[in-house]
């Protein structure tokens, strides 16, 4: 067991964990943030995607102990005070989710994608999201949602 402290969504969580504890389980069980999900054992599905220092990573393929001293952002950080983030609003408006299981990971990747490329083409969006599986939507509406969010976020940035 090792004691580790992680900054998740701006808040520090300290806990004793085994070295083998995966980041996703630390987030779900120690930090009690269950919006980040688990969908496979092979680092294939991306439903566990969170931002590690701003970059999307599969939290099932990182040991919690490796994240000591780093900043984690999960889906729970997106709507402080209940006002939806433009990406959340866009997924809602465009029917970019059905069962909702891939949605948190998909949105975290989308946010990082738009950070890197604020005005992506459809192909760039499809490429950028290709580490996150969705079994329900067929991706059409997810692409539309990212396009809507891109517009909303650039307008927001211009207003700032």
């Amino acid at each position, binding site marked *: 067991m090792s004691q580790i402290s992680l900054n998740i969504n701006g808040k520090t969580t300290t806990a004793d964990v*085994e070295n*083998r504890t995966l980041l996703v389980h630390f987030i*779900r069980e120690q930090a009690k*943030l*269950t*919006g*980040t*999900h*688990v*969908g*496979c*054992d*092979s680092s*294939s*599905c991306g*439903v566990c995607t969170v931002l590690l220092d701003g970059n999307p990573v599969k939290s099932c393929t990182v040991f919690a102990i490796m994240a000591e001293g780093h900043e984690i952002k*999960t*889906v*729970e950080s*997106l*709507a402080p005070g209940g006002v*939806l983030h433009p990406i*959340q609003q866009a*997924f*809602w*408006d465009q*029917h970019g*989710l*059905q*069962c*909702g*299981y*891939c*949605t*948190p990971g998909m*949105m975290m990747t989308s946010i990082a994608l738009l950070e890197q490329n604020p005005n992506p083409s*459809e192909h760039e*969006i*499809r*490429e950028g*999201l*290709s*580490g*996150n*599986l*969705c*079994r*329900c*939507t*067929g*991706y*059409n*509406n*997810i*692409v539309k949602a990212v396009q809507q969010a891109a517009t909303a976020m650039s307008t927001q940035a211009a207003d700032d």
Partner: protein
Amino acid sequence: MTTEKHAMGKSMKRKEDPRFLQGKGNYIDDINLPNQLWMALVHSPYPHANIRGIDSSAAMEIPGAVAVVTSKELNAYKVGWLPTFHGLDKQMVLADGKVLYQHQEVAAVYAETREAAYDMAELVEVDYEPLPVMADPYKSMTDEVILRPDRENATNHIFNWNVGKKAETDAALEAADHVVKQHMTFQRCHAAPLETCGCIAEFDAMGRLQFYVTSQAPHVYRTALFLVLGIPEDKIRVISPDLGGGFGNKVPVYPGYVCAIAGALVLKRPVKWIETRTENLTSSFARDYHMDIEIGATKEGKVTALKVNTVADHGAFDAAADPSKYPAGMFGIVTGSYDFPNAYANLDAYFTNKMPGGVAYRCSFRVTEASYAIERAMDILADELKIDPAELRRKNFVQPEQFPYQSPLNFIYDSGDYEKTMNVALERIGYKELLKEQAEKRARGELMGIGLSTFTEVTGAGPSKHFDILGIKMFDGAEIRIHPSGSGIIRTGSKSQGQGHETTWAQIVAEELGLDPQNFLVEEGDTDTAPYGLGTYASRSTPVAGGALALAARKIREKARKIAAHVLEVSEHDLEWKDYKFNVMGAPSKSITMQEIAFAAYTNPGENEPGLEATLYYDPPNMVFPHGTYVAVVDVDRDTGETKVRRFLAIDDCGTIINPMIVEGQVHGGLTEGFAIAFMQEIAYDDEGNNLATNFTDYLVPTSLESPSWETGHTVTPSPHHPIGAKSVGESPNVGSPAAFVNAVIDALSPLGVKHIDMPLTREKVWSAIRNAEALAAD
């Protein structure tokens, strides 16, 4: 009043989304009970072996180890075997004496932490004596090795099912100008929702089982648990929380569930079990039909007879989730959209050393296999007769005036207008221009294909005279309670897995009552509160639960009429329901809304029974028959065998549309699953019975990059017997699209003489077909 904005037919945004968007969904693994134990399962690496012994001593040395359970303990409690849904077989909970398929559950371990449970599972030592493996149903057929000596009959044959007129069909085939014959396989697939299955079992202070489980059919589970465990149903509460997809995978009662409950009972602590992805992919399957289809036709292309012989691989246990009287599901829909004067379908099912099942996967019980067979065969017929595939279909469609149409394989189709739907599709895709482009490309040696599928489905199981599971008739219940302020709660026995019931159920009720759909809470999945229903699978929710809801709402309306009459001081016969309110006939200024009536129901009901609630069970008079035309346009890379789906258009006719946005979303998702089946997905086995697709590195779920961009549209031919004319749509794209993809690829390769390739159409299979054709041409 926002009714006009958000009633039926409107793309209302989903009411369930805000919680999912904020990571506040409540899925099974998000639930933890105080003092719970974790369970893990030990699986067999052998597909067929005697178990000589199980040694759990090393496992019990792990810190945190609590118990190891095998079939011996389960048998002592008489819970070693499970009945299968249609009653033709039973299934081991944990391997009893021998294992029959690779990854079969052999032991359950219980520990204080999840990690310890997995550490334990690794150390349970099982002594296996390998036995000969039957990994092919055609080999099983010989009965050289009997897989199930526990059964009365010493044979691997499970059942024969047939429908239609054999002698007449054979005679018609004999007399036909032209007969096409094709063997085709619909490969073994898996629904693979992104959330795996799981459960938590707890016996509360009153000795009542609180069973949280990923279930598409909570009430069926409650009854099944009564049958397996003997616990009275009032002592069982099944709670199905938010489901991360289902697609049929969350219909069966899995052995792990029984082990969790047994553990909770004996260890007197809550037990939690969440499947690994490997466990999810190796516990059940769908499809695996090997079909020989024959179509007879006149030389002008008018079909005269259809015959299909099928060998079904059901794996080690016949754990199919089909209704009792339909061991081959709705396979009789195999005559599709075409008016066959004669038809006969015959099917034999066999045991093999593979995982058990035959569960439905985004399909109303074997409709997908049937649709694929007929739509492929029609294309082969068109190719052989040198008739345009659209023209051939046009010649043979069941005509609008023929409905209700009695099919030769015993269905009565409710409604449809196949030619209209196809015309819309051909027009929108630009069929003529595509044919021209294809001709030009062919002249240059390029491989471009256009594939059509004009499928008909049968959904909405079902009418009680035909359909039951475990003897329970397949009707659904709905309960609506209207509160004094005009808001309300809706409960059904259905269970959304992403289909958006919280939205569409509110829309149906709001439309019927003239209330605001935003003000309805929809609750599903708790057997303590929901009325009995058979659950959500086989595209049955809108046809059955949706019908129940509309009729329950109308029951409320009839009661409301009485209260309205009292409030308005008129006779109820003077009232007419129009523009979402009761109007006094002949007195246009006098009317009352449902919201006002609701208030009156609790404040001023007069002589009427107070309150405004209704519960209704709907037994549909018939099935519903959605249809559609799908068109795929593909380009095939001659060097690598890669297929690029350049365009795909789906025109669906699912009758009355409740929420177009949700319908379109369902179609997109189903098309991507159909695409995956056509090109990527297969649970393949090698000759030694090893399962070759046990995780997402080999069971290929397409990403946004592989998945084509979908084009959709619809025609509307309402069902004449459904209360709101709705059919269903969730499964249509998965049912209809595989044939369109394959037809397109074969069309692209047809100049080379390629007639058929079995799915999945991997690059190598296509490459190989091209190379073989070139070699033949060179000879």
